[in-house]
């Protein structure tokens, strides 16, 4: 007799399901079962994956949930068909609306209203009927069962029998059977499955501990007493329910009544409201034409042909509305002065360029539209737009307003267990002290949870860390089993979906932590459901650009100089290229990492093509494929590009014969093998993802056969294919590189010509970029731009550019002309919140603060904020002795409070004030001030930590970065500094190379650590905040770096600074 599991939890029950979907389905297939239901807690997040996988295995997917009701009970709800599924989505959405994001509570009235095509099972022991029976209230149980029968009808309500081997199971099941007979409803057998295999109970139990914030030693009602909730075989189930064969038969009956409920063939994107009488296609054509005139002035036949080609594909794929929606969003941003930039493969489209969404002229650049959209691939278009991070939500709100709250939602993401999160969560649940597991987790790099054991052997910082491995064996095993399990649902950074139908019939909507409504499906699954994701992303770089422009124009307005226009930045500015060539590009978008700086110092970029290639080159693929060296050699003419076929030259000339861009792979396939653009893109995808050698061999044979048929010599065809294969997975989308390249160049221009304004903007928009704020401050100081400490009467909510007073200029003698400095923002002060900041600024606007007492009397800030303001020097201009102010603060606060009260003796109170403040205490030492400033601001306005250590370091012949700049290459040197961003990019050989930067008071020096040294010193490199590196100084291009031969921890406490 076939038994169908109808109450099964997947890992999408969030810490209440311990077997991945594929494993559950494989087990069901082994049983020979014809169907399976997935019933996660209050979500259908597994539905799409479940549907696709089950269908591919010939298993009927039954969609369901275990629903939490407003009465606190659970109920299993199964969808019989698409209508039932839509009702299920509605019910879930209402449950989240009635409850909250962590405790949904479906109203019973809603259950009645949306009960069509749903089958209800009475649920586990948390179901209302079983719970009442266990409480001994049979009559109440009967009333509850009758209520559900009244809601959905006798045929659609089943009393669920679970042989769970828990106390009272016999009594419970017997009572349910009797009740079923009395009410003339059927019983159904389930096993409330939470894991496929009995051996996975410890994993499930620990997940339960994580979910309930308990430890394995604790008692909690949600922890199961035994390991019986596994996926039992039909034979086991039949044996268990031998007394109740009808309960087994009901599973088949229900499975037969339920059909696959998801329709993955639908198109749910809404129609864009076009002007009356016009079709979407015609309107898109008109807008494209208008845009083309604006962009090109004259529409030449090649431009017309290209646009027509794109429009015809867009129309045939019926995605005109999507383009119009994105155009409309870009228009909104432009009209509202919100800075934006289109990115990604959409920049391959001339239509998108003409619509004003991207700034990449794909026709002039010869970019391939098919990389973006093709008939053969028939994938949904994906236009990504970056917005000024501060206004991205304004843009999203526009979309909500335009299409209606019922039709728009944010796409969800699933936070999954990786090594660090798994070690922390499972470690705590197993009872390890939090500090111990945090320290253990921190030692692991960002690897998947199932790579923990492998990482133990691979990384010396773990291997040599004296971790008592024997203590953690059980922990590691559990972590590895939970790899990839979703921990919680979150909001996708930029993804919005718009649906022509009310969204709650397609996906349940639930509130995210930040309040927006999110789907229960991630970006891939929403596309399968027929929705198209709009990627409206936040990019802080654009915020920094906007702030920079504003700051420059504020300065120019004072001098009467013409205003600055970011869009008009010349693309051939010699000084900007010189800056890039120097490798001193910290702050430049996409060009600031150590690898990029090293590349820039060698590449000698002098045009935009070089910048675009740079963006594509410093990626794991090209680095791993050793593409950087040949590229640089050919760029400098030291190596001649060779082409095995003349047709390759026009395709690869711009990258000196190196296949760098994905578009080039497509062009090669089209030109050499006569592939259609769509076939070529398929080749590109096989290359890029390289999941299967079989797939690669098959497409290789096709390529070679077609190339030969196209008149190419067989050997040449094979060579060309091997050439492409050699770069499999390394290619980067040229359109994306071009889109980023534009911002990269322009921010480099700002860095060169307006450093003070640009650094201030970067500091105001943290976190952004590659480096911490203190490094940006160091860079500013290196460019002779002083960082001015926060000042209670000058600093604002942002870092601001100030012309230095003659006094300040004197202090910073090397300041550039005009002498500009960057004033630290008050928002940088630890514990400062926006309300307090606003209070400080608005009160100050009435009249500057004259003293700490004045400040305390006029504002109502928390003591920790005032303390931090004192410690970071914000009151120095009013009173230079910080310790004195701290000493006086409690009395000042007390007296300020008393002064606010009516007093009979106000003069005496004033006198107390004065006399008390006469008590003098010595100020903090410079060292103490330094430490206070860093801990309160996360940066140091004046001195760098290394400056305190310099005298001792000098005695030990340890050079500063300044000294290394003039030191000849090849010398053996020693340097010391704060470690910035140690990382180990993948290499082709698989050997580890660590790159890090040492920061000192003068600047930075890059360090390269090869495998043997890494194996020896890895445990120091990744765990110590400051290092001494001894090695050989190397110069490549304009950049110097140390090849490490010895690494030592720099013990800060040993130095009396």
């Amino acid at each position, binding site marked *: 007799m076939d038994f169908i599991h109808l109450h099964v939890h997947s890992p999408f029950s969030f810490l209440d399901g311990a077997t991945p979907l594929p494993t559950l389905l494989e087990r069901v297939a082994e049983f020979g079962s014809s169907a399976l239901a997935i019933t996660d807690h209050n979500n259908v997040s597994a539905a799409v994956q479940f549907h696709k996988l089950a269908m591919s295995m010939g298993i009927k997917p039954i969609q369901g949930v275990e629903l939490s009701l407003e009465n606190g009970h659970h109920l299993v709800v199964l969808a019989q068909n698409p209508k039932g599924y839509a009702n299920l989505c509605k019910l879930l959405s209402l449950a989240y609306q009635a409850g909250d994001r962590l405790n949904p509570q479906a109203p019973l009235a809603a259950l009645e209203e949306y009960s069509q095509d749903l089958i209800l099972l009475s649920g586990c022991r948390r179901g209302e009927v079983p719970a009442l029976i266990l409480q001994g209230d049979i009559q109440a149980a009967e009333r509850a069962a009758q209520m559900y029968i009244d809601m959905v009808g006798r045929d659609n309500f089943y009393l669920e029998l679970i042989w769970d*081997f*828990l*106390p*009272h*199971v*016999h009594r419970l099941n017997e009572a349910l059977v009797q009740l079923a007979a009395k009410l003339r409803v059927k019983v159904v057998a389930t096993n409330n499955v939470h894991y496929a295999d009995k051996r996975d*109970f*410890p994993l499930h*139990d620990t997940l339960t501990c994580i979910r309930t914030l308990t430890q*394995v030693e604790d008692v909690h009602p949600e922890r*199961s*007493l*035994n*390991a*019986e909730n596994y996926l039992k075989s039909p034979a086991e189930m039949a044996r268990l329910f031998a007394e109740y064969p009808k309960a087994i038969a009901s599973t088949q009956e229900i499975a037969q009544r339920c059909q696959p409920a998801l329709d993955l063939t639908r198109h749910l994107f809404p129609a864009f409201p076009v002007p009356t009488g016009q079709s979407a296609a015609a309107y898109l054509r008109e807008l494209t034409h208008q845009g083309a005139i604006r962009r090109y002035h004259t529409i030449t036949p090649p431009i017309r042909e290209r646009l027509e080609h794109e429009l015809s594909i867009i129309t045939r794929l019926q995605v005109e509305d999507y383009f119009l929606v994105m155009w409309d969003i870009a228009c909104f941003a432009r009209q509202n002065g919100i800075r934006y930039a289109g990115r990604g493969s959409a920049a391959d489209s001339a239509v998108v360029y003409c619509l004003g969404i991207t700034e990449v002229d794909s026709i002039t650049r010869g970019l391939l539209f098919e990389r973006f959209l093709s008939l053969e691939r028939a994938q949904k278009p994906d236009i990504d737009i970056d917005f000024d991070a501060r206004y991205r939500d304004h843009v999203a709100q526009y979309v909500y307003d335009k299409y209606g709250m019922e039709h728009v939602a944010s796409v969800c993401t699933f936070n999954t267990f990786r090594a660090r999160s798994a070690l922390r969560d499972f470690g705590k649940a*197993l009872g390890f002290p939090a500090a111990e597991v945090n320290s253990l987790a921190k030692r692991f790099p960002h690897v998947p949870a199932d790579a923990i054991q492998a990482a133990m052997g691979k990384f010396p910082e773990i291997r040599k860390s004296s971790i008592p491995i024997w203590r953690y064996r*059980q922990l590691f095993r559990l972590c590895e089993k939970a790899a990839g399990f979703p921990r919680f649902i979150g909001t996708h950074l930029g993804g919005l979906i718009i649906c022509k139908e009310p969204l709650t019939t397609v996906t349940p909507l639930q509130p995210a932590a930040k309040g927006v409504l999110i789907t229960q499906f991630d970006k891939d699954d929403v596309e399968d459901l027929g929705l198209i994701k709009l990627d409206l992303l936040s990019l802080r770089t654009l915020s920094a650009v906007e702030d920079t422009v504003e700051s420059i124009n504020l300065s120019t307005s004072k001098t009467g100089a013409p205003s600055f226009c970011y869009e008009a930045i010349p693309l051939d500015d010699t000084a900007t290229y010189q800056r890039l060539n120097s490798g001193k590009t910290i702050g430049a978008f996409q060009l600031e990492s150590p690898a990029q700086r090293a590349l820039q110092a060698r590449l000698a970029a002098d045009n935009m093509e070089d910048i675009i290639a740079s963006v594509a080159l410093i990626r794991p693929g090209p680095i791993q494929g050793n593409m950087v060296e040949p590229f640089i050699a050919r760029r400098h003419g030291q190596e001649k590009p060779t082409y095995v076929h003349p047709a390759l030259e026009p395709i690869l000339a711009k990258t000196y014969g190196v296949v760098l861009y994905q578009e080039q792979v497509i062009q090669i396939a089209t030109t050499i093998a006569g592939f259609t653009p769509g076939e070529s893109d398929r080749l590109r995808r096989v290359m890029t993802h390289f999941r299967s050698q079989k797939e690669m061999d098959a497409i290789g044979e096709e390529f070679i056969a077609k190339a030969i048929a196209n008149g190419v010599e067989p050997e040449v065809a094979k060579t060309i294919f091997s050439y492409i294969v050699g770069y499999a997975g390394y290619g980067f989308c040229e359109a994306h590189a071009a889109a980023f390249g534009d911002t990269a160049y322009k921010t480099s221009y700002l860095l060169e010509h307006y450093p003070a304004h640009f650094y201030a903007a970067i500091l105001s928009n943290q976190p952004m970029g590659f480096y911490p704020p203190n490094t940006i401050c160091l860079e500013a100081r290196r460019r002779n731009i002083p960082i001015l400490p926060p000042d209670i009467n000058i600093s604002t909510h942002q870092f601001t550019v100030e012309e230095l007073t003659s006094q300040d200029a004197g202090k910073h003698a090397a300041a550039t002309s005009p002498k500009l400095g960057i004033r630290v923002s008050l928002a940088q002060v630890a514990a400062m919140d926006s309300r307090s900041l606003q209070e400080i600024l608005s009160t100050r606007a009435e009249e500057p603060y004259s003293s700490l007492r004045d400040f305390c009397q006029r504002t109502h800030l928390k003591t920790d904020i005032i303390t931090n303001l004192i410690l970071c020097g914000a009151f120095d201009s009013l009173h230079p002795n910080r310790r004195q102010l701290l000493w006086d603060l409690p009395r000042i606060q007390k007296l300020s409070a008393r002064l606010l009260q009516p007093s009979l003796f106000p003069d005496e109170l004033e006198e107390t004030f004065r006399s008390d403040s006469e008590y003098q205490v010595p100020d903090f030492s410079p060292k103490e001030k330094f430490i206070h400033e860093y801990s309160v601001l996360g940066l140091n306005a004046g001195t760098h930590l290394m400056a305190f250590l310099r005298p001792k370091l000098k005695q030990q012949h340890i050079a500063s970065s300044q000294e290394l700049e003039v030191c000849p290459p090849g010398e053996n040197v020693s340097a010391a500094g704060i470690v910035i961003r140690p990382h180990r990019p993948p290499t082709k050989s698989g050997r580890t190379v660590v790159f890090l930067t040492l920061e000192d008071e003068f600047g930075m020096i890059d360090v390269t650590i090869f495998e043997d040294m890494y194996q020896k010193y890895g445990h120091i490199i990744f765990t110590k905040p400051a290092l001494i590196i001894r090695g050989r100084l190397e110069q490549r291009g304009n950049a110097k770096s140390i090849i490490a031969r010895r690494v030592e921890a720099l013990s800060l406490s040993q130095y009396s600074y």
Partner: protein
Amino acid sequence: MARRVKAPVQVTCQGEQPIAFLWQGQLYKIVNIIESWKECGEWWEKAPEITVYQVLTATQGLYELHYQATGQWLLYKIYD
């Protein structure tokens, strides 16, 4: 009130069900299994799964027997 005994006992079964046990030289015949359930116990300490039987003997005594997955039977509790 219950008294914890935790003593190994010999048990006679019919199928998987205990029907009698021998403790301190005396044979106790089980007339009714009042309740039974399974427990995993402290799996993190490698404790074996146990099946708990609350039984009524012919002498009208109430006992709790534990069957461990290792094959061992324990008289766990006596209810006064």
